[in-house]
């Protein structure tokens, strides 16, 4: 196996409500891998299981069976509290809804992942100023997030995902709530991140996303099964 493989998912299945009449298997025996610096797209219609798969890759939940090797360590069987630590150190998430906390400022929203860490307030504000500069949010720093435009909210979400210097950026339908112009802006931002060496995994059904040239590989997800294209 190639040594620059960051994540390798091997025959992973996930089941909800096992043994009950409403048992479902949103992911069945999925296998895929992600290399360092790649942009990988999970493509599929809504309800195909790609969000669940993204959650499994991103250590949000544990699979029912199968192995997930992250940087050489099998994380599929780890207890929740260690998954959290790995998730915090390795992944940055951008959600379909922006999932920002209303009523607090842009700065505080971006800083959220750093609160339960040992980083000092000084270091935190240094990092956040730098990041807001990159994503041109500085003029909005003290504003409550709910008065920002959709594009700005998306950038806040990206900044929050990047604040803890993750290895991998996970994005779930990032363009779902954006018009095509803003979507293009988002893709530019992602391209910029890729050029800096960031690994990116995107779950989407938006052709605008998986047809851009920065995408290295596309997996098609249908009924919980994964096929490389």
């Amino acid at each position, binding site marked *: 196996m190639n040594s620059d493989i960051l994540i390798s998912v091997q025959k992973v299945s996930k089941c909800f409500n*096992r043994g009950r009449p409403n048992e479902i298997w949103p992911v069945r025996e999925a296998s895929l891998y992600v290399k360092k610096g790649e942009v990988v797209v999970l493509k599929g219609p809504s309800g195909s299981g790609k969000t669940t798969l993204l959650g499994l890759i991103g250590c949000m939940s*544990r*699979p*029912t069976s199968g192995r997930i090797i992250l940087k050489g360590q099998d994380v599929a*069987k780890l207890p*929740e509290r260690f998954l959290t630590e790995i998730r915090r150190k390795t992944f940055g998430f951008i959600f379909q809804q922006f999932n920002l906390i209303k009523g607090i400022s842009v700065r505080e929203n971006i800083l959220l992942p750093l609160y339960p860490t040992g980083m000092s307030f000084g270091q935190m504000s240094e990092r956040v100023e730098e990041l807001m500069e990159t994503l041109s949010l500085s003029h909005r720093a003290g504003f409550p997030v709910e008065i920002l435009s959709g594009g700005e909210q998306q950038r806040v979400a990206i900044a929050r995902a990047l604040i803890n210097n993750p290895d991998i950026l996970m994005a779930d339908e990032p363009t779902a709530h954006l018009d095509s112009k803003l979507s293009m802006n988002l893709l530019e931002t992602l391209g910029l991140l890729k050029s800096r060496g960031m690994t990116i995994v995107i779950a989407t059904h938006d052709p605008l996303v998986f047809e851009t040239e920065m995408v290295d590989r596309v997996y098609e997800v249908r009924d919980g099964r994964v096929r490389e294209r």
Partner: protein
Amino acid sequence: MIFHPGIIALFLGSAVVVLMLLYISLLSVRVLRYWDIRSSSELQLSLERKTYLTSTIMNYILGYQIVSALLFIYTVDSLHTEFVGAMCATGVLNANPVGWYVLYLKVLNLLLSGLWIGINILDQRSPEYPLTRLKSALVLILLPLIAAEGYLEVRYFLGLDPAVITSCCGSMFSAQGKGLASSLTAIPVKKAEAGFALVWTLFFISGTLSLKYKVSSFKYVFSIISVLAFVVSLASVVSFISLYFYELPTHHCPFDILQADFNYVGYPLYISLFLCTITSMLTGIYEALRRKVERKDVVDRLQRKTTLSGLVFGLLFLIISLWPMVFSSFTLQGY
């Protein structure tokens, strides 16, 4: 007797704690039956989540135990005016013999909850939940003890009859009396002092050794000596340490030093002794649990911390208890 504000507060607190403990005991039974760290079933996941509840509640219970022990002594002490012949907490405890058992159980439960929290800290620092079963079993041991404490507390206060003429510390802790307390007093001061000095010397030697060398028997010895030191020190407080605080050769009461007249010196004295015992005992307990835990470095780091704090609190206790012997003009020579 029930409508004393302090007694109401104690009853209320005990009721709350016993209920919470009962709840986590039910959880613990499920943990003991179904815990399987290798499984990724939903049952296992829900059990893992319930361990958070258990440790949260245990943290609160430890906090409660500390407050309630102080409140108990305080309340018992403030009741002394209602009993003929009682001049401090001792007299009121004698008024209904159950009182002593409540006190002993409170001390024991305080120690046990402290140890539980220590074990929990080790468990939470290791990836594989190595001690969860042990912790659950300990909760099940703690439940009857704390419930018994609550029950005896109720029986004690309800059974207090202010018409009873009780003896006070003056006659209780005098050499003529019967029972454990008086036999403690009857120990010749010289022997008590020698025992005290011996035990604490051993304590510091074994502590330093277990800090320096990675030999497990040193750590066990250190823990065992800390328990000995705890017992010997409590006996010594009755036998001779308190005398120096009161500057009276016949006043042996271990509770009066908690009062304002003696600058509340009893609080730092007992608190440092408790902390010293709990942390030193944890050194040995961690040693015993070492083979269960995968990450030995975590054990080492925690052990270092507990041993060091055991030594520091021990030193603190010694300084406080020896202070008046060194700096006051009162001597026990000739008694």
